[in-house]
């Protein structure tokens, strides 16, 4: 592909986000904010056993309570089409799949009355012995047919066991990461309204178009029945992703049953069982190398959990497939189905936990070989994907490591552990590499010139706080060769046609293709004298064929993270005074919002390293720390100095805008960099996250 983008006036400028004023003044309306006449409220009645059957629901008592309009349950719910998504197959039978699963929905005229009736509803169960606790040696672990989203479960190249047996240096270690919950600030909420034979959902989703299609199939509606709106979404981190969530299906059922608009909003504790989370992982790494640290063998195996409803296998060891050169390389996954809520996407699914395994093991290898950890990674750089043999569209890991080392002041580091004592603190530094796939997904967009001289661009994109709307505005303005002030980008409406969602760091890379192409086409038509009719002149582009026509290449964003830590000798408290992140992410459309994305990723990585852990009580099948007091997310004082830089990464093999996603790479490798720094500070390896005082205590 030849370079199709040019330097232009809007792209590359730190434009403030276009909806920023609306958000800080409260004018922006989120899914649960919209006022509607006659709105009713649904409240979930959650299962309070982890496994068994519902014997009886005291519906009559609930119906007799003030304000209650109806109760939805297995006996009066509409029959659904099995679309292979068990979390949405609600009220279709009496099985309880996990703690907190909906067994009924109370619909009332106010949320308080719905909640009171729901919390008081008596439910009789026939409980069965549950199996809720994930273990690395669970007897029911098996190899699934594929891992997320549709990737090979196992890859194998060469002779791992032979290579390890012959290797001069071997690292063989196990690493564990806990379940984590995404915990976006905006509640998960859906409002369903029937009007004129169409159903409109206002919901907090990252995937407006895909949701409209899934819900249409689930309910057996005629194509085009469901419209999904998500103009503003207050954070997602994956768990407003695809497939749709239970609250959307429940709102549709309820609005259909009571014949008026219904809103279903989940509380913070309810999001734990109903919206997804990152699976716990158990990983085993075996690295073989020569005495200089050149890898001869990499084996990365992982075990994860899923629910009884859906086989959802986090692609943990995919991180090791393209990362470092090794003639013998094996990756694999196993999954176990338990009586637990269904795990889902969480920022950098696969790469975030997988990088903790490989980048920690690389640090152990550096120690074993006596090679500097940055140098070790440089020695194992590669021009081709070591698993597939495909060339990379660009690979700037070495640039990121070198620039990062320079910015961080890595040179001259004493490699010995536990030598940096400073009063009550042990001090140390650590490094980790990072990558994240640079994917582009077919999408459709429309660009319209209005008689007023303004332009409207429509694409079913979502801005979950990333700045995507602003970036698309800049890209559209440049393609139209007009100032950004005359371009309005409308997003968050499934009626705009097929489009990728905001996930997998694919958003801007995917949407920009049809946006830019449609805008260029429109500009060309206007330049060639085509008239603008009163309703506007529109160009539409569907990128499907163009995306599929690309060369087969390994496309990735790259990064390196450096961490300085201080560990309190008295208490085991770990502080991170400094993090440096350096990234190669293609072309940066907006340095302001890009930096915010990377800062946010690094902060979430820090939070993963030190704080976040969802704690399962296997007797209940419930994550019992299901609130923001007990599930710790980093606060401002946890975050020290964050240094972010990008290296030049022209990559013409991506999309017409040359952009790679950058929403996720900021989290990848940060936990390993911090854990490696804790080892450097204290001499104790941290192979399990989070590194709490109890684990770091000396």
């Amino acid at each position, binding site marked *: 592909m030849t370079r199709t983008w040019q330097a232009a006036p809007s792209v590359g400028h730190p434009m403030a986000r276009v909806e920023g004023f609306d958000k800080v003044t409260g004018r922006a309306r989120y899914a649960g904010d919209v006022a509607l006449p006659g709105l009713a409220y649904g409240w979930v009645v959650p299962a309070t056993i982890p496994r068994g059957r519902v014997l009886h629901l005291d519906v009559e008592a609930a119906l007799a309570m003030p304000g209650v309009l109806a109760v939805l349950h297995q006996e009066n719910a509409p029959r659904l089409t099995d679309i292979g998504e068990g979390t949405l197959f609600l009220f279709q039978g009496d099985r309880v799949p996990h703690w907190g699963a909906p067994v009924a929905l109370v619909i009332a005229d106010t949320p308080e009355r719905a909640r009171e009736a729901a919390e008081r509803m008596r439910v009789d169960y026939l409980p069965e012995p549950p199996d809720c606790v994930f273990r690395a040696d669970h007897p029911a672990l098996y190899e699934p047919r594929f891992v997320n989203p549709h990737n090979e479960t196992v890859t194998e190249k060469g002779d791992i066991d032979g290579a390890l047996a012959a290797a001069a240096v071997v690292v063989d270690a196990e690493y564990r990461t806990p379940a984590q919950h995404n915990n976006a600030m905006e509640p998960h909420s859906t409002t369903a309204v029937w009007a004129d034979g169409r159903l409109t959902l206002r919901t907090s989703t990252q995937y407006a178009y895909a949701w409209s299609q899934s819900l249409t199939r689930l309910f057996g509606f005629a194509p085009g029945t469901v419209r999904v709106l998500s103009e503003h979404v207050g954070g997602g981190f994956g768990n407003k992703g695809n497939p749709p969530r239970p609250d959307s299906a429940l709102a549709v059922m309820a609005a259909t049953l009571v014949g008026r608009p219904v809103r279903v909003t989940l509380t913070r504790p309810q999001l734990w069982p109903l919206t997804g989370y990152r699976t716990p992982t158990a990983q085993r790494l075996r690295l073989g190398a020569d005495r200089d640290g050149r890898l001869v063998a990499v084996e990365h195996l992982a075990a994860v959990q899923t629910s009884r409803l859906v086989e959802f296998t986090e692609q943990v060891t995919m991180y090791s497939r393209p990362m470092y050169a090794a003639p013998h390389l094996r990756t694999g996954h196993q999954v176990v189905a338990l009586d637990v809520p269904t795990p889902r996407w969480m920022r950098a699914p696969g790469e975030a936990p997988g990088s903790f395994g490989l980048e920690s093991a690389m640090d152990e290898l550096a120690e074993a070989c006596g090679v500097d950890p940055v140098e070790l990674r440089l020695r194992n750089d590669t021009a081709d994907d070591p698993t597939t043999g495909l060339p990379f569209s660009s690979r700037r890991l070495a640039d990121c490591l070198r620039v990062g080392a320079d910015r961080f002041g890595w040179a001259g580091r004493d490699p010995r552990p536990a030598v940096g004592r400073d009063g009550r603190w042990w001090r140390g530094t650590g490094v980790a590499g990072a990558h994240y796939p640079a994917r582009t997904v077919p999408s459709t967009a429309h660009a319209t010139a209005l008689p007023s001289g303004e332009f409207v661009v429509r694409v079913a994109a979502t801005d979950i706080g990333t700045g995507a709307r602003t970036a698309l505005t800049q890209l559209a303005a440049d393609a139209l060769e007009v100032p950004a002030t005359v371009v309005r980008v409308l997003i968050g409406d499934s009626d705009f046609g097929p489009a990728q969602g905001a996930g997998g760091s694919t958003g801007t890379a995917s949407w920009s293709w049809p946006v830019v192409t449609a805008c260029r086409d429109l500009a060309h038509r206007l330049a060639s004298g085509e008239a603008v009719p009163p309703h506007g002149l529109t160009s539409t582009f569907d990128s499907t064929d163009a995306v599929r026509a690309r060369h087969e290449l390994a496309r990735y964003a790259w990064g390196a993270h450096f961490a300085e830590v201080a560990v309190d000798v008295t*208490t085991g408290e770990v502080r991170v005074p400094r993090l440096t992140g350096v990234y190669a992410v293609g072309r940066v459309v907006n340095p302001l919002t890009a930096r915010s994305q990377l800062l946010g990723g690094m902060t979430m990585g820090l939070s993963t390293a030190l704080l976040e852990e969802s704690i399962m009580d296997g007797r209940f099948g419930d994550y019992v720390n299901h609130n923001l007091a007990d599930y710790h997310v980093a*606060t401002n*004082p946890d975050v020290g100095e964050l240094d972010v830089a990008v290296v030049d990464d022209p990559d013409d093999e991506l999309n017409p805008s040359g952009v790679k996603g950058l929403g996720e790479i900021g989290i990848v490798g940060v936990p390993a960099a911090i854990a490696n720094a804790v080892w450097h500070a204290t001499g104790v390896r941290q192979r399990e996250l989070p590194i709490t005082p109890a684990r770091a*205590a000396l």
Partner: protein
Amino acid sequence: MREFAYARARSVDAAVALVADNPGARYLGGGTNLVDLMKLGVERPDLLVDVTGLPMHEVTEDGDTLHVGALVRNSDLAAHPLVRERYPVLSQAVLAGASGQLRNVATTGGNLVQRTRCGYFTDATKPCNKRMPGSGCPAIEGEHHNLAILGASDHCVATHPSDLAVALAALDARVGVQDLAGPQEIPLADFYRPVGDRPDLELTVRDGALVTGVALPPLPAGARSAYRKVRERASYAFAIGSVAAVLKVDDGRVRDVRIALGAVASHPWRARVAERALVDAPATPPAFEAAAEAELAAARPLRDNAYKVPLIRNLVVAVLSELVGDR
């Protein structure tokens, strides 16, 4: 949420009269704990009696004693010049708790009677002997990494979440309360009941008694005080262990010492065993460590909270050593 009645009390006597004989009534101060518990369905009062209009907002001197009204907000208490000058341990403890927004509304009296944050207590779908006597304690075999190591029972291993009260315990504070029998003042050490087999009964005062204030006696001349809190997150988190200490040293020997421990028991834990071991002992880290070990000999850690024993030991040594070395 269940509907409830709301009344604004016009006097302490009127407030007490409304609540004393009504098990469904609760005093409303800052509401930072009670309102949360109502949202969670853990508290389901019929009547809230708002006491924030009562004249209990002042910090006043009475001879050597400092009186803190029950409605003095955490922020105001921590910032008060006399508190900062005379009782640094108290100011430090208050500022270590909650967040700025919460400290701006939370009250001194409410802080003392706040409930445990044990996750089984705050989740109305789970058994809990404190919330539902006789239903069992899932924490003992379940999630308890931040629960009690001292003074717990087979019925409950909850911890008291306060920072402020730990400092008050080290200061020998007295709690002013009023019930139908009239006002009284009782030592903080006697304000909380041992857990035993009735973890639902937390206080020694009668149901419906109103906390009216706290009295702080003077510290011995030359004594110093400090509070240190350990938490998993750098801010806005409950302690996993904390130490409040008052120490007076002469000629290298301990002349007066008071130590209170937080996040280890159902109430602020006064470390009397350690204190006795230190009287006239050399003010040195080995002596502090031996005293801490003596106190912690009574510790009965659970499966996942044994880390607290060395944590508290190290913390006691560190805080006392800093109080010695800082002069």
